[in-house]
């Protein structure tokens, strides 16, 4: 059902950009028909202010100025500051309604609950992906283990110093390979315990994603083309971006049945940091293209995918004010175009 004109014009002001304000911004920016007019917080480092900037939402430390804007239909107060209700009463336009006090706390609790559910879902999707790759992970680990075991057995009783040296070097190299893999897996499986926002290099995350994809399938017959034009670092939670690109790269490789060209590009287009992921697979049927981001939509065999991958990909991209657009024609492969506003770049 399309929103009516009245629903489309819901314009909201948020006071407070702490945890409650951040959760509100995340949720409201996902809702069609709601526009966040501005966010105010007296603390310039409040996490919600950075989140608002990703979405090009004006931020201010002057709550009175924002409250006085007469376009606002609704002022939501999640500051918890006892002085704010009086400030709102003094400055607000008569047209604006106020959601504050206990009502705002109720909304805040509900949103918090929804947010936690989503976090659990996103983490479950990661773990499920790891579960699906168990065989691939075992394979990738067992090969170097086999080498270590073999060279160690041949070391026993070996008198030739040159051979002792050679076998030890092989063991060291294989152990390093194992260690690199554990690091990659660990980064992928991490939850939100990481520092929330840090500078993330997108090309590096794309390369990590390729390493993860090797667990899902054989990559030897996939030609990987990296068109990395320099891009600024992005302020983000690295674990979330990792999840986005691991999902997209694995989907692309699986779509090609592990044979073809995978092209990864980064660049700056207008005010956006752009990333494209292109495969030479069979493409997505037009009737499926509109549904790829829907939760639980999958064309994979039962047990091979949760159907949550692209849903979570889009949710994370949207959180950073970005967009993702698939372009595909049957027989001509698929391109996913992703754009993040440069406001989120460091």
């Amino acid at each position: 059902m399309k929103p009516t004109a009245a629903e489309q014009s819901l314009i909201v002001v948020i006071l407070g950009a702490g945890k409650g304000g951040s959760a509100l911004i995340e949720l409201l920016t996902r809702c069609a028909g709601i526009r966040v007019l501005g966010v105010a917080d007296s603390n310039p480092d409040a996490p919600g202010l950075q989140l608002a900037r990703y979405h090009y939402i004006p931020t201010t430390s002057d709550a009175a100025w924002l409250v006085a804007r007469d376009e606002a239909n609704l002022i939501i107060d999640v500051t918890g500051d006892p002085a704010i209700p009086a400030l709102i009463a003094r400055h607000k336009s008569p047209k604006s309604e106020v959601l504050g006090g206990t009502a705002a706390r109720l909304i805040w609790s509900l949103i918090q609950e929804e947010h936690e559910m989503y976090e659990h879902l996103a983490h479950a999707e990661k773990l499920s992906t790891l579960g699906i790759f168990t065989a691939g992970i075992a394979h990738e680990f067992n090969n170097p283990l086999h080498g270590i075991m073999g060279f160690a057995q041949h070391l026993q009783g070996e008198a030739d110093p040159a051979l002792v040296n050679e076998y030890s070097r092989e063991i060291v190299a294989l152990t390093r390979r194992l260690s690199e893999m554990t690091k990659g897996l660990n980064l992928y499986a991490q939850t939100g315990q990481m520092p929330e926002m840090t500078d993330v290099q997108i090309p590096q995350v794309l390369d990590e994603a390729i390493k993860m994809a090797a667990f899902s399938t054989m990559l030897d017959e996939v030609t990987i083309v990296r068109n990395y034009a320099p891009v600024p670092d992005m302020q983000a939670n690295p674990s979330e971006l990792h999840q986005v690109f691991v999902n997209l790269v694995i989907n692309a490789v699986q779509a090609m049945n592990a044979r073809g060209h995978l092209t990864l590009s980064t660049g700056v287009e207008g005010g956006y940091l752009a990333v494209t992921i292109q495969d030479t697979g069979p493409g997505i049927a037009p009737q499926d293209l509109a549904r790829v981001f829907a939760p639980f939509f999958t064309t994979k065999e039962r047990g091979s995918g949760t159907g949550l991958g692209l849903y979570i990909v889009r949710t994370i991209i949207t959180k950073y004010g970005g967009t993702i657009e698939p372009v595909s024609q049957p027989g001509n492969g698929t391109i996913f175009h992703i754009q993040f506003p440069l406001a989120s770049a460091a």
Partner: protein
Amino acid sequence: MALWPFGVHDRETPSLGVVLVVDDEESIRKISRLTLTKAGYEVIEAENGEKAIEVLNTGENPLTVDVILCDIRMPKINGVEAIHYFRTQYPSVQIIVQTGFPDLNLATSLMKQGIVDYLVKPVEKEKLLAAVSKAAEQRTICNT
């Protein structure tokens, strides 16, 4: 031409048998070669299924190769496809799978196709030698 117990050999120095080692990883092939040559086998190598088929069809190899030690996950032609080809074209050549995949269903299906053993890496050298020795024995039975 001298007729050796395993396959047909006309080389001057008899070996315990000829093993074709198929694995895409160089270090794995190196380990297998070390273990097998030290034990008295002759080793030839291929880095994927396609190469293995090519090697097996070269010269006298179809007659001289006794055992194929084959990985599963490889580029070009994978182990499953290659094994199907070997079993169909050269049923007397014995096959041992040596793979990183602990996959019971695959193991069962390949055992039904007549492979001698399904070894999951990491494989200790004693275990590999026992499997190869058993396979070479079966090759002899096939030839008699």
